[in-house]
Every structure is written in structure tokens, then in C-alpha cells.
């Protein structure tokens, strides 16, 4: 039963119920034998808990092949401490990017770092 691709997707709403963070890691196998890991980082917000969430930003970054093992470990074992903190920081960056305060390049680098900082 070979797997050809998969995604693991974690959605967390902040305690004040106003912010929704979506962290999705997916792996795709290619016809040329390579594998590609992708990280998607989504942020939704609302002003009141009775409102619907609105999309703030969605970042999609390709994981460097050098970090494929870390992506595999993350999918299998979950985020470690460093990755969790990096994920929260990446959420901040995504928000700042959506507000035009920082560049997309920086926000994407911060999202990519979520995988890269894995310890082992």
C-alpha cells in the first residue's frame, strides 16, 4: 500500500477565540523520483467571537530538500519546542506581512524556519 502523498494539518484557535492558525505540512512524490515537502501557514482573524473568521494571510513555502528529513520527522513526531516557538513567531510574521509591514521574503523564510529548527 505505498503512499504517494500526504498532508498533516493542525488548526489551533487562540484562547481569546479571535485568531485561528493553520499549520499544514504536505509531502508529494514526483514522477522523477524526487520528493517535495511544502509548508502552508494560514492565519485567520475576527474582531468578535460571534463574527466569522476572515482570511488574513496564507503563506506557502517549499521546504529545501536538505530539510526533507526534518519535515519527515515533524510529520511523524510533531513539532518540538523550538519548532513550536518558531511556528508562533512565523504566525506573527505572516500577520505583519499581511499588513505590509515586512516583506513576503521574510515571512516565507520565517515559515520555512519552522521545519529547519527541528533538533533531530
Amino acid at each position, binding site marked *: 500500500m505505498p503512499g504517494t502523498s*500526504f498532508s498533516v494539518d493542525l488548526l489551533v484557535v*487562540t*484562547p481569546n477565540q479571535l485568531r485561528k492558525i493553520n499549520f*499544514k505540512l504536505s509531502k508529494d512524490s514526483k514522477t522523477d523520483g524526487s520528493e517535495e515537502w511544502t509548508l502552508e501557514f494560514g492565519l485567520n482573524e475576527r474582531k468578535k467571537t460571534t463574527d466569522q473568521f476572515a482570511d488574513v494571510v496564507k503563506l506557502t513555502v517549499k521546504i529545501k530538500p536538505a530539510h526533507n528529513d526534518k519535515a519527515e520527522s515533524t510529520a511523524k513526531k*510533531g513539532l518540538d519546542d523550538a519548532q513550536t516557538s518558531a511556528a508562533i513567531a512565523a504566525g506573527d510574521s505572516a500577520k505583519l506581512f499581511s499588513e505590509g509591514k515586512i516583506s513576503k521574503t521574510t515571512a516565507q523564510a520565517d515559515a520555512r524556519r519552522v521545519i529547519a529548527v527541528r533538533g533531530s
Partner: protein
Amino acid sequence: MRQTKPRLNRFLTSAVSVSVLLFAIAPAAAAQVCTRKDVSFYSNGNFRVRRVRIESPIDFMHAISSHLNTLKSKLPLQPSTVFTLEKSSEGRVIIEKALDELEEEDDPRSRVRVVLAGIDNCDENAAQPQLDVYYRVFTSNYNSYLSHTFEIKTDELQRPATSAATTTVETQTRGFLRVQPFVNYNRTRQLFGGTSARLRMPGAIFDAAEVSAGGSSAGNEQALELSGSRSPGSGPIKQLEYRVRYRHSDLPTGGNRVREGLIQAQFFAATSPLGPAGLLLRYGASLEGGNQQTDLATAAGGDSSQADSGYGGLKTYLGATLRTKSVSIAASYGLQLGTRGATTDLDFVKHVADVGFNARWLVKGKPGAFHKAVTLEGQLTGGAIKTLGTLPVSQRFFGGNGVRDFIESDTWRIRSGPYIRSLPENSLNSGSALGEIGGTGFYSANLTLAVPLWGYPLVPPEMAKDQKFMDAVEGQKESARKQLVFRHLNEIQAFRGLIADLKPVADELRELDNSLATLPGECAEPPDEEEDNRSELEKTRCTVKDLVFILRDQLKDENKEDLPSRLDATLKARDDSPTCIDDDTCSALKRLRVGLETLAPLLRPAGFTQVADTADRVKTSLAARQPTLVAAYNVIEASPEKQEAERLGTQDMKQLEPVLNSFINELNWFAVSPVAVFDVARLWPDKNGTRFGVGGGVRISVVNLNVTIGYAFNPSRKMGEGRGAMFFSLDVTDLFR
């Protein structure tokens, strides 16, 4: 009585579900093995798709089964098309997007989801090689109220069950209007049927309007209800439910009839789970008024009761519900202050207490095997009415194999009468000297034991045995737990001192920001991340500028409360690795220092000496401060407070984890269990005394919906009574222990 309304339509949908299931698990074509580990072998253009499957163990909860089936025709891989890995991935993405859209309606608080695409049944040696394509979907939403209550909102079960049942009803279920017929039988009501219609009203004060009407040759019942619920958040009102309802009924009680018209305005609220055990408290009140008529005027008058009268009342109720791994317990108390009509004179006071438990012991089996859970359910209920004036007959206690609830709610049930399965509904007091007008005191105790013998697991065996899939679920659980732990980091007081120590850093960053702002031009976004043709100076300057902005934003007073969870990324990350710069795994501060170190020499030749000096000075200062800050952070990391955050996060996770564990380790698509029942009940006044019910039957469980059918014997049979009575019940196993 209210619970009898949707019984048969639920039963029918369950039966259809079982039929669908049996069809689904019918032996497929002889399975063939995909021998190559390198899946690109199958993507060389030679293999054609034999069939496409979408498997999901949880579609019953989200009404997605029909939606997923609809999606099949939109996937790029279809039977007889050439298989490629890229098209397989595209299909996975289409499924994920569809799930996203469905999820918008659910508004989940947190959830984990795994979607796995794969191939099997590869016919590698045929002239035309073929294979099957599958997509496995695992997702779970979480709601802390539903996951801690004894009862589970039956509506959650009805919607998906309906959509799974027939395609004709599907469009109605997925829209704003749902129309459902129902049919049922018991000896008291005879064969009765009717229809209910539910209109969703998103965005309004009430979430739904429902009207139902049903009847038989023995009686009839109609109801109109507006209901809503809100989840205001934490504290004393985590969940709020409210409804306005009008009900009219005309039902037999043995030789008597009780006719009622009643309007009710009701609310109840539930707290957040309290304490390590997750105790949940519920409380509420309702105001009701109407009128009632019965046939036994003389009998009623003989017991200070009113055969025909108005009725008004205030009900208050409170309760607690608790779940452990194996046992769920709910205890409720209700107080009713009633009048015989539009008067302020108090005519009667009713007390009702109801305690129920549900114990479930799982017998461990092999991965993918059908799960055997022995269940023991018990309920002890009692009540008393103190008559101060006259008591409307409809407000007395009636007993049998169907009893009325004290309040109207799908998520909180308080029995308001003696329940005994060996006697038909409303016929417990046939021995009363007054006639069948109910009683003013009662108790009943009920036990039900079920032992499953045969079934099929909810998570298909091939899924449960797929280590990659199960690992992905476990990984997501750990990610969710870490997120919860890091929320609690923000509550650690020791971080306050460290955050205060960051004040000079914030000052230096402000100075640096001001200095960088003097540089001419704006930072332009590269057209393509891979083709950044900006000059080294431009790139470094923009990177530094962004880093300064991010750090300053984190250190703002209004963001400081949330800073602890970001400090690892800000101060520490993988700075201990000598290659952290090349790997891009350094902390934000270190990346800033390195950026400044690169920037200063680039600025000087360009004539920006002053900015370069500032960059150098801030870099040196940060280099001096960071080790101290990291040391302080490490101390907190090793402190008992951090351990406490871990504990709290793990505890929070216990609210989510049972959902996942239930799906994987407990739930069956269906199971068949022999059932044994024992009841004892007593109503006052009733010269027949204590009554018993002993019997057995069979329980068919479709996921967590249990249909139990059996016969309870009446061992102390009295004049005019039958040998016993059929019993039929529909209930829900609590998934989220």
C-alpha cells in the same frame, strides 16, 4: 416522550447506513500487491487507474460522506486514466480544499487532520498494468462542551445520518431546510408517525426553527420550537443554549387521557471543564404556561388534583457531569414551582433528582480488529411533589417504558418519571385507587449490560495497520499538545523579569530603526524568491529592517504578555549549532547581529557611515546582552513553572486526545451486542408497590448511535397487565472520554 419523535427515522437511517456499510465491505476484487517501494515506478505512464476510493472514518460526524463521494468525479485520476503521482497529489489537494470549505461551517476550536493518498492492488504483470488509487481522510473537530457532557447533541447525529441515508434527502440536509418523516410504535401510542421540518437560520438570534407533528389512532403531538446556542468562551458560561417552544399533546395514560398545550421559554448554561477531572457544571431555568385537560375529573379531585386547569410554572435546574476514561456520570436536580394557571398562588412544588452513569471497558484487540467494549449503563431517578393547593394532573409523575424529560434539551436530559421497561408508557400506576392519573412520588433504577460479539471497526483495518498514517496522526497530536503547552508559557511569572531585561534591547532597536530609516529608497520585494537580483547591500538592509520591525513588534508593551512563547525563536533557537547561519536556524537576535555585521561594511563605502556606526554599536551591544538573556531563559526552561506549563498543556490535550483515541481505538462502524436489562420502579400512590422489569435483547451500534431492541418481562404481573413489554431505545455513546 420527546425522544420518541425521531426514533424510527433514526432507526431507518441507521439501517440504511448498515446496508451501505455491508455493501462497502463486500469482498473486493482479489487484492494484489504493489511490490515497488519506489512509487515513481508506477508513474511511468504504463499504469492505468482501475478505481478510486475515498476512505474516511469520521464522515458520519460531519456529513461529508456524500460530499466526498461527489468529489470523486472531480478528481484528476479517474478509472482508466493513466496514473501519475502528480495527478494523485492534485486529487489530495482537491479533497483538502473541500474539507476546508466544510470546516468553515463547523468553526472548530482546534483540530488535526491527515489526508493520505496512495495506491494499492497493483496488477504489475498484466498486458495493461492497473492499480487502485485511494485517499484516506482523518479529521476531528473538538468542542469542549460536547466532549464533557453525559449526553451528546442528537442533532449532530441526525444530520449526517440523514445525509448518508439517501441522496434525495441529502440536498435538504446540506441546505437550510431539513424535512424528516418519522414513524414509531409502542403499546400506549400504537403505531404513530409524522414529520418534522427544521430550518437553519444562521446569523439570527435563534439558530433554528423546528416544527413537528405526529399522531396515531391513540393520540397526537405537535411542537414548534425556536432554538439557539452560543459559546461565549470560558468561565461560568462556556456554552449557552436557549429555546422557545410550544407543544400540544393528547396522549393516553391507560384509561385516562392527558391533553396539554404548553409554551416554554428556557435557557441553560454550562461552565468550562473545572479541575483536573474536567467537571462540568450546568444550570438553567425555564418559564412555562398553558393548560391541561384529563378525563378523570373525579379521580383527580380525590387527590387534590385538577383534571382541567391552566398551568404555570418556573423550573430551575442544576447538575454536574464528569467523564473519566471508562465512566461518564451525570447528576441533575430540578425544582419546579407551579400554579394552576395565571395566578401567583403557588399550588405545588416538584423536586426531581436524576443520576446516570455509563461505564465502558475496552477489551484490547489487534490493530484494525473490531473493538469490543463492554458497557454497563445505570440510572437512578426519584421525585416528589408537594401539593399546596391543587395539582394539574399533567404535572403528576407518569411511569412506564417512556418518560417525559424535566427540560427540553438535546444535550441535557433529566428524567421526570419512573422508567420501567416491562410496562408500557404511562401505565405504571394502573393499581392506583384513584385511577390512572399518575403519582406524586416515585423512584426508579435501571441497569443495562451490553457485550459486543460481532462488528467492523470504524477505522478500516488497512488504515489502522498503515504505520505511516498512524504516525502522522500521532505527530499531529504532539504538535497540538506543544501548542497548548506554549500557551501556558505566557502565564509563567518568571518570564516577567526576563521581559523587563529586554527593555534595553527594545531601546537599541528603536535607535537602530530610526537610523535605518535615514537610508534613501524603499525595500523592494524581489519578483521571485528564487531570483533575488537585488544588491547585497539592498538584500541585507531589507532583511535587517524586517527583523528589527518584527522584534520591535514583539517587544511592544501590548504584545509582551504573549512574548514568552516566542522567546525560544527570538533568543535561542539553534544558536548552539555552528552552522545555524547556513542552515537558517539561528535565533532572531543572532540573525540580526549577523545581518548588522554584514550590513555595516556595506554601508561605509556607500557613504552611510553614521548608520554603519549605529549598526556596529547595536550589534556589539546585542552580542553582549544575548548570552545573559539566554542563560535566564534556560533557567526558566528548567524551572518547575515550565514543568507546570507542560502539565497544563498535556491536561488541555486530554480534551482533544480522547476524540482521536475514540476514533482509532474504540469506535466500530457497527457492532452487535446481546443486552441484559433490569429495572425496578415505584410510584406513589400505587397499591401494587414496587415493580420490576427483567429482560434481554440486542443492541445494534452504528458508530456511536445505539439502537437497542428487546423484551422486558413483568415478573409481578397484575390484573390487566401484559406479560411484559417490548423496549426500544436510541442513545448515543459518548465518544469523547
